[in-house]
């Protein structure tokens, strides 16, 4: 069953994308570590970290695409799951600092000493172990999404209402994490990390490894989402996106299916956040800001929702553009981003990848039709297009 899942998931474009990602996971670290700094093919470490960050963004966009593109749930709170995963990782990294903090307390992170706390809050227990933190990276966002989704889908909150409620959720979390009493570092968040799994977090090797891990995580998630989308379950998911009531009347438990997709998506977002935090070196409540979640939506929209490659392309395109833009004309970035929102929704509703696929499919159909006229026998179907 697992092999069939894998075989189904690896349709050609996905297989190519996974192969590229695996290749990147090897080549970029190698070029960074093995070539001399003046070598023409050398990749500087800051670029490795930057692109590692983009890959985590791409993973977040892919997670959103699973619920938005295939299930019709426009979540405006996906950055919240990303940030929750990031906080779980951040807590592990904080515990790794140990007695090397500015206050030298072996147990308490600096901000707790600063707040005059005497002992570690219960929810910080266990985060000194990597496996526990890694588990929490997946479990916490998954659980939040499960509880939230269970309430929301059960009472058939959908469409824009759901979007607004997810936005309210991330807003509430934003406010909550800003509080010092919450025990997550308040306004400043968690930072000053030293080690991850015993390796210095600033070292080139660790950075390259984190890049490779991000690429692998993205490739793995691509396989999983592709498997979900390509399965029978995925087809029903698309059906409920396009006609929810009809799907329900056909006897499918629509809310269970949505809940499953939402939870899986949140877990993926959590993993993305956990890989993001060691690469940028900080996690603070700002990550919960509703604007962040909406930005993820635009990455997905630019790339093309309903395609699995689209969100990855979109996240890298938009964030690459952001890096260039904010360096060159800092005040114009928001104009550009705002314009992107308007133009993409008006003129490119399928996104870059979706539009390209659409054109390719049309060309192929035209060619097939021409061939059919020529030979009349060749009935090869155009490959079915991915759902829009």
């Amino acid at each position: 069953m697992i092999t069939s899942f894998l075989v189904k998931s690896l349709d050609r474009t996905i297989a190519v994308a996974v192969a590229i990602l695996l290749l990147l996971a090897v080549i970029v670290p190698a070029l960074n570590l093995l070539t001399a700094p003046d070598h023409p093919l050398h990749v500087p470490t800051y670029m490795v970290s930057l692109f590692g960050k983009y890959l985590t963004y791409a993973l977040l966009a892919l997670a959103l695409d699973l619920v938005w593109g295939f299930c019709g749930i426009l979540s405006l709170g996906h950055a919240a799951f990303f940030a929750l995963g990031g906080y779980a990782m951040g807590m592990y990294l904080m515990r790794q600092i140990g007695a090397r903090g500015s206050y030298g307390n072996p147990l308490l992170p600096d901000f707790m000493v600063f707040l005059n706390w005497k002992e570690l809050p219960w929810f910080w227990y266990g985060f000194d172990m990597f496996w526990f933190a890694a588990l929490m990276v997946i479990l916490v966002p998954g659980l939040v999404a499960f509880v939230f989704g269970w309430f929301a889908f059960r009472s058939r909150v959908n469409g824009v209402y759901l979007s607004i409620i997810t936005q309210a959720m991330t807003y509430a979390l934003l406010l909550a994490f800003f509080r010092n009493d919450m025990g997550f570092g308040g306004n400043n968040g968690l930072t000053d990390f030293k080690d991850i799994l015993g390796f210095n977090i600033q070292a080139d090797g660790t950075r390259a490894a984190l890049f490779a891990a991000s690429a692998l995580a993205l490739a793995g998630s691509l396989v999983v989402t592709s498997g979900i989308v390509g399965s029978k379950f995925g087809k029903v998911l698309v059906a409920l996106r396009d006609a929810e009531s009809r799907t329900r009347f056909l006897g499918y438990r629509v809310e269970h299916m949505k809940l499953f997709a939402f939870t899986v998506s949140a877990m993926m977002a959590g993993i993305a956040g956990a890989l993001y935090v060691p690469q940028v070196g900080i996690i603070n409540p700002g990550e919960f800001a509703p604007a962040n979640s909406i930005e993820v939506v635009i990455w997905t929209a630019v790339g093309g929702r309903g395609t699995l490659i689209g969100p990855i392309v979109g996240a890298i395109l938009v964030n690459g553009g952001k890096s260039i833009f904010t360096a060159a004309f800092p005040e114009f970035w928001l104009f550009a981003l705002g314009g992107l929102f308007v133009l993409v929704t008006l003129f490119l509703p399928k996104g870059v990848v979706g539009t390209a696929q659409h054109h390719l499919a049309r060309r192929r159909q035209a060619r097939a039709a021409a061939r059919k006229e020529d030979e009349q026998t060749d009935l090869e179907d155009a490959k079915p297009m991915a759902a829009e």
Partner: protein
Amino acid sequence: MYRIIQTVLAMLFLFAAMPQGLRAAEGLRNLVNALGEAKLSAMDEHIAALAKTGEPEVVAILDALGAGNLYARKTDGQVFLTKESGSNLALIDPISGESAGETPKAAMSKIKVNNSVRRAVRAALGGLTLLSPDRAQRLKAAQSVLQTPDVDALDAVENALVAEKDEAVRTVLEQARAAMLLASDRPIEEKKEAVRLLRENGGREALPVLSAALGSAENGLEQDIEAAIASIEQAQEFWNAGQNVWYGLSLGSVLLLAAIGLAITFGVMGIINMAHGEMVMLGAYTTFLVQDVVRTSFPHLFEWSLAIALPLAFLFTGTVGLVLERGVIRFLYGRPLETLLATWGISLILQQSVRTIFGPTNREVGNPFWMSGAFELGGLTITWNRLWIIVFALAVFAALLFLLKKTPMGLQMRAVTQNRRMASSMGIRTPLVDALTFALGSGIAGIAGVALSQIDNVSPNLGQGYIIDSFMVVVFGGVGNLWGTLVGAFSLGILNKFLEPYAGAVLGKILVLVLIILFIQKRPRGLFALKGRAVEA
């Protein structure tokens, strides 16, 4: 001859009178100079002696002493009031109040004061100013005596009570007297009377007085005091609840203002306008611009600047809304999620435009006189600007309701939103109605901005703070129903303010959000749900 006698008599009289006046002044001067030599422990007596003279100059002297501005000259021990003047001290004669030149600081020694001296100064001043001819000063003195009741000042207060005619000052003085009585050794009947008085109009200030008296109360008085405390606490609770309701109404009116335009665009038309908050912001900036022009060109019109800004803000944001609807939103009808994204993009552009033009910092918008200040209503403090905003929000609501229910345009709007194709068949130009409805919603956001500029910081981020709250109000109240928005705004406002004292501001807000999310479980269509076929469309 007669004249000579007269002159001589007058001279004699003067001779007799002058030294007497001089002698009094001389006595006062001696007393003041004694301050310079007195030990800290003996200061109290000197201050009491000064206060006893009852001379008007004493007030200034004691004030200076309390503030540490009284210095003695090292050479001759003369005491002066001083003022900083660069590195020198400007000297003022304590008796005549005339300037006495400047000296370097080193030539003077400061008269030291500690807390017990300051207390003595305050008590003495209280007694002195209680008899001042200025009503405001008497009231202030009476209040300060009430806050720190001291048995020694009882006589002074009673003297003042005899002379006092003003009702407000009398009330305060009587309370102060009652407070002092409780600590004194007067007979129990008088004390009982005092407790009764404190209980009746004591308020918050009476609580510590009564609790202090409870410790040393004789038999028979204890029950009285306990009952009084209980009754005052009950009254306090009542007023606190009242104050919370007031704050809640005030917050609710702000929410209503922010959400009411959204109730049109989202509630009636179904457009998710994420740039709604930016319309509010544009309205606030219009107010700023209007005030700027008024201030520089027509300063006499300043009190009217808000009235001028209102129609301008409505027109400006309405036009922006019209352009938005015609330029972007109309292509996205039937695709609500895309509308959400496009309008979010527009909100980013608007924010950044304002930031580029006006800078990222807060802009100052002034309050006209009729919107500043506060008044007391029972135990409530009510600020005028909040009161006006509640009135304004309700007025806007009423006007909008009238427009939708009683005018041809409102009729067309409702027709188009209920059944577009049928309305179109009946000859209504639906695209025009769409555009006008959206412009109306945006214009109302603009006038909300005029009002909110009075209580909030006018900055490019002004709108962002309101957008989530306003959506919550509309969703909670029920989409497509203005009454729902009204009830939703005020109930969320009041709920928020009642949670705040227990949970803190932030946690209160989180709780409200969670409650709304739970509420939507029960009633996904809000408090006042639309019924009928339109719902499932």
